[in-house]
């Protein structure tokens, strides 16, 4: 059986090997993912992001447990794939991937597959190949894919163009209301979570976030002027992830957002912008790779020198090289 067929049949070792090939941008991985691509599109991808130490991994652990359970409390057939991204060292390229530590409750469940990924130099909170890894899990029959980003600050918003539903996690004591009104990570939230709700100040954090959201989308606003987030007002949910508290509410919110996307037609809109984003990013990365690989005349090295000597600005140097490449 070929690797493609093995992955399609649900063989976990083959899936694991395929994910490595994809991550290494190996030609075989690209070929197999191409063969599997027609099988993708049925998974619901949930992104989980937030600052380091807010409890992302712990929350993913409990959300995965909840998604594996039907309303009757029994294990259901929905398989859950988890992708946990941690940062690579900018110096050695190495990484410590420690998200599994918080996900030990998930061990032994054949309906769950956890893959840790290093960011490998990417800055948006994911790695270059996270999107493709998610698609491979989709093709392998995972109904839910949870992607946990690198601990994010204010601007790591790539997850919003990869996930269908983005959960942003905050915790008490992390700044005042001006932080909540800055552009960036809060804007991408479909669901906001205030984790560690047992800590002092949690209620205050929740109120600040709700107020900030309300300023963004007042309920009485004329329908024609509402944003393209299409009338979805992100709920703010208080959780204590270590205790599993608030997880039922969170799961309900995810399901509600999923059906909102379907009913409002927003699902198609997001799929389109997902494809646009992925193509643009890949095109950019591949063009740069190709340019550097093919750079036999050492144009790039020359650019570095002229900019260092301040003979031209970086933008001029890039403009000139592009003109040369195009002619």
């Amino acid at each position: 059986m070929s690797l493609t067929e093995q992955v399609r049949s649900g063989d976990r070792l083959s899936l694991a090997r395929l994910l490595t090939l994809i991550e290494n941008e190996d030609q075989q991985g690209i070929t197999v993912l191409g063969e599997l691509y027609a099988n993708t599109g049925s998974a619901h991808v949930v992104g989980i992001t937030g600052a380091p130490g807010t409890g992302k991994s712990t929350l993913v652990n409990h959300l995965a447990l909840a998604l594996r359970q039907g309303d009757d409390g029994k294990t259901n057939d929905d398989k859950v794939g988890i992708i946990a991204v941690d940062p690579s060292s900018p110096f050695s390229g190495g990484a410590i991937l420690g998200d599994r530590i918080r996900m030990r409750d998930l061990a032994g469940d054949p309906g769950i597959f956890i893959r840790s990924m290093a960011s490998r130099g990417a800055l948006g909170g994911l790695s270059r190949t996270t999107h493709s890894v998610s698609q491979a899990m989709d093709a392998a029959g995972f109904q839910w894919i949870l992607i946990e980003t690198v601990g994010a600050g204010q601007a790591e918003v790539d997850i919003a163009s990869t996930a269908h539903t983005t959960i942003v996690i905050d915790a008490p004591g992390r700044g005042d209301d001006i932080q909540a009104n800055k552009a960036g990570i809060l804007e991408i939230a479909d669901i906001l979570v205030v984790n560690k709700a047992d800590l002092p100040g949690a209620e205050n954090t929740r109120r600040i976030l709700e107020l900030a959201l309300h300023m963004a989308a007042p309920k009485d606003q004329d329908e024609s002027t509402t944003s393209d987030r299409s009338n979805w007002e992100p709920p703010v949910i208080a959780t204590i992830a270590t205790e599993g508290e608030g997880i039922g509410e969170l799961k309900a919110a995810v399901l509600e957002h999923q059906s909102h996307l379907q009913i409002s037609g927003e699902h198609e809109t997001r799929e389109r912008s997902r494809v646009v984003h992925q193509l643009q990013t890949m095109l950019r990365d591949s063009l740069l790779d190709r340019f550097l690989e093919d750079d036999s005349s050492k144009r790039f090295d020359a650019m570095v020198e002229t900019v260092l000597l301040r003979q031209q600005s970086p933008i001029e140097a890039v403009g000139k090289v592009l003109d040369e490449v195009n002619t």
Partner: protein
Amino acid sequence: MAKTTLRVLIAKPGLDGHDRGAMVVARALRDAGMEVIYTGLRQTPEMIAEAALQEDVDLVGLSILSGAHMALVPRVLELLKSQKQDNVKVLLGGIIPDDDLPKLKDLGVAAVFGPGTNTKDIIRIVHEITSLKPDVAN
């Protein structure tokens, strides 16, 4: 452009109370450019084999201080084999009496590191072992 980065699982099977040594090794391998999946304390052999499978690692490093290595290590090796993860190399660190070394090597442990091992030696041996790794493609 195909890249390869060594992926290593560092795991602590059994009931050890601390993981300082395992953390030191994990950190050293990170600084040598490897991706180290760290699973934390009190892992069962089943959890370790499953994590190795999902993460598709080249290498599993086990740290055992409790003296239970002759029970835990063979179980991990057995599971790896039964799951067709024969290509995964297993290293062992911790408090391991010299008398057990021949038996552990026979079972298939690639190397054993006792207290005080220089992390540079660990990295060198990791590189030696993994360059012998057969091609896993298909």
